């Protein structure tokens, strides 16, 4: 077959992706330090790509725009992994007298970026081609990319969803609707002092969250069931058994009981999920091998690329660990291998959770990473944080790449090309954000303390990790919860419902307000399908839900910048 002239990987798409990725990375790193949450850049990149590639260059194609958004979101997402972990290192340095050399962290961030993409090679076939996971954000980005050319009615529904969601987000974020004790922090407390707090009568009023449920449908119900079991069965039982004080039950039950149990269940469910789906994994690998031989279906990256990637990442991870303080060669080799194996499992968990629910349990994975590494290296905080940076970057990359590959599948893009471009440029994101955070820290009085409590950049996520690391270094690890939760997740993994262990674990791990809103979306989708049919859901509900996701994302970004500017600016 002659060379295709249908534009896919082009200089324009790659350059635009890199430029957008770096800008979004820097902006979102700053916003995350300021506000405590990070934002995915796929939707912004896709809209900008549409405007510039199609609008300005007049020759852009859908799959070319997909390459642009793949690169941009890859570079941006690396920053999310770094901003969650790396600032905690600086904050720890003032508590624990640590010397900080940023080079190991830059290497770790680059290693994480490479590994996140590498582990997706076999997972892509498993989760997109075989399991057909929904990846709601991937579907939303597809809808944006196709919105201009797939008919007015779909574009109109996308637009309506966008306007409703953006307006709603604006109303919530501006606190115009706030009623103390009832509607605050974008959450609706429907307890009204009648339903006790330990039943978690709170609904997260995010239309994006509900829309993710609308896109997942009945597939998302086990996630909701996990949360419902945790807060409507386990929590009241704990109170009835008098294991906690009923007055302050909710925060204790969440942080000391359900959250660590959920993390354990996530991991146990994922491990058994791998074992139970072994025939499917075998089929996926066979298909990849056959693809190389079969001329009509050769669009896969080969196992060789995966091998090179793993080798490179092992080397980088080892180099990062060895270049830090007081680690022997033996420990370096051990930590590199354990790091890579754990990372593969974490990537699998996060990709599966994102595919089913659109939610990434990054903080839980970071917590387990730090626990494992501190255990192996006898509470060596510096190396633990280096590996935590690599793992957080990698799992963020894995989840983002899977969403992008889902978009690529729906548009007919080449997975091999998408993975190669991401492989080629994504390391940039980790390095950019490490340097940005270093500069922000050095901008403080006397060359330190540029962020953290009491500054204009409170870095709330890193503050949480800081507390965890300090707890771990004093031996405060809820091992029992991880193990017993792991057993529950593992048993659920044997049930004849795909992915139920991971979903239930995630439902227990997250605040119930999020799970409840998501579950509401799932139930609405089931209702719509029953009343209006599958065609309605595919052609009306999907673009509308995509609009809801995009509207909140864009308004969230706009509002973050407004808050930063109004409180002193950059």
């Amino acid at each position, binding site marked *: 077959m002659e060379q295709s002239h249908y534009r896919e990987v082009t200089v324009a798409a790659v350059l635009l992706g890199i430029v957008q990725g770096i800008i979004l990375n820097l902006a979102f790193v700053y916003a995350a330090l300021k506000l405590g949450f990070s934002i995915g850049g796929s939707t912004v990149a896709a809209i900008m790509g549409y405007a510039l590639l199609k609008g300005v260059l007049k020759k852009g194609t859908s799959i070319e725009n997909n390459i642009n958004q793949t690169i941009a979101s890859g570079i941006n997402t690396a920053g999310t992994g770094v901003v969650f972990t790396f600032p905690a290192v600086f904050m720890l340095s003032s508590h624990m007298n640590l010397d900080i050399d940023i080079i190991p962290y830059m290497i770790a961030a680059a290693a994480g970026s490479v590994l996140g993409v590498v582990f997706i090679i076999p997972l892509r076939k498993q989760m997109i081609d075989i399991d057909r996971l929904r990846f709601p954000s991937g579907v939303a980005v597809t809808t944006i990319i196709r919105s201009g050319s797939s008919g007015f009615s779909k574009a109109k529904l996308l637009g309506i969803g966008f306007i409703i969601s953006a307006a709603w987000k604006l109303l919530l974020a501006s606190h115009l609707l706030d009623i103390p004790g009832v509607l605050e922090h974008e959450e609706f407390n429907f307890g009204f002092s009648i339903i006790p707090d330990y039943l978690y009568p709170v609904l997260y009023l995010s239309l994006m969250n509900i829309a993710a449920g609308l896109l997942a449908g009945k597939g998302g119900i086990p996630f909701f069931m996990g949360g419902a079991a945790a807060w409507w069965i386990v929590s009241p039982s704990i109170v009835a058994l008098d294991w906690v004080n009923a007055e302050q039950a909710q925060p204790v039950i969440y942080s000391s009981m359900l959250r660590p149990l959920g993390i354990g269940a996530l991991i146990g469910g994922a491990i058994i999920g791998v074992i139970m789906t072994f025939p499917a994994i075998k089929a996926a690998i066979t298909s990849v091998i056959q693809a190389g031989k079969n001329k009509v279906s050769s669009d896969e990256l080969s196992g060789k690329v995966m091998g090179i990637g793993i080798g490179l990442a092992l080397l980088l991870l080892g180099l990062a660990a060895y270049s830090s303080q007081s680690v022997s060669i033996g420990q370096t080799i051990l930590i590199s291998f354990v790091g890579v194996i754990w990372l593969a499992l974490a990537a699998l968990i996060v990709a599966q959770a994102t595919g089913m629910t659109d939610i990434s349990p990054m903080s839980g994975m970071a917590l387990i990473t730090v626990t494992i590494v501190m255990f192996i290296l006898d509470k060596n905080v510096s190396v633990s944080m280096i590996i935590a940076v690599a793992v957080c970057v990698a799992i963020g990359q894995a989840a983002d790449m899977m969403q992008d590959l889902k978009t690529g*599948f729906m548009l007919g893009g080449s997975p091999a090309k998408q993975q190669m471009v991401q492989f080629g440029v994504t390391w940039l994101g980790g390095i950019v954000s490490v340097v940005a955070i270093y500069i922000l820290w050095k901008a403080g009085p006397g060359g330190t303390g540029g962020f953290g409590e009491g500054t204009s950049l409170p870095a709330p996520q890193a503050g949480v990790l800081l507390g965890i690391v300090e707890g771990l270094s004093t031996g405060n690890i809820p091992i*029992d919860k991880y193990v017993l939760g792991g057993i529950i997740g593992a*048993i659920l993994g044997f049930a004849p419902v795909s992915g139920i262990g991971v979903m239930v674990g995630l439902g227990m791990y997250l605040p119930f307000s999020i799970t409840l809103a998501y579950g509401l979306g799932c139930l609405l989708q089931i209702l719509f399908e029953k009343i209006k049919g599958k065609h309605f859901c595919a052609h009306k509900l999907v673009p509308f839900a995509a609009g809801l996701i995009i509207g909140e994302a864009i308004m969230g970004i706009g509002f973050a910048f407004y808050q930063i500017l109004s409180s002193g600016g950059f």
Partner: protein
Amino acid sequence: MIRLLSIIGFLTCLAVGMILASKIPVEGTTYPDSTVPFAVVVATSIVFLILWRKSEQSSDYSAEQGSLNSNQVKHILKTSINTLETIHQKGIDNATLTRLETISLDIAKIIDSRISIQKDLGLESVSMLFCDLAYSERSINRGVSMLLDGYENKNEISELIRKAALQLKYTCEGMNSN
């Protein structure tokens, strides 16, 4: 009935297990004193799980109404191959996009019937079928993108459709060999 009871028993045991696992250990111990009862309910849940899995294998409960069996899947694949070959032979016209979207919806029906097909063919064969099917779907999706983007090289779109038909034939052959 056995299936329903085993599911209820399994979920009840696990809920009790979650409650028992939640207890915080007393100072100086690693595990809570509810660990032994936890082990008992977990062991019981495994009995219910085995019953659930057995009832699942010997019944049609998990197959939803309207699910396709493997013969119907083959029929859909053959119809889709014919449609794609017709498009390739007659060339790209205004109706091509609608036809490709119809094929996509037919393939979606196959995907939705995963459980019932799995009963016929087994997990590994269904996984292979879905892998193979994904190649054709990707080609069809690419064709749809080209048409929506107004791509002018109709020969290339036609060639892509021929490739999708070939891939579907390959999928059909794979099903027959199972």
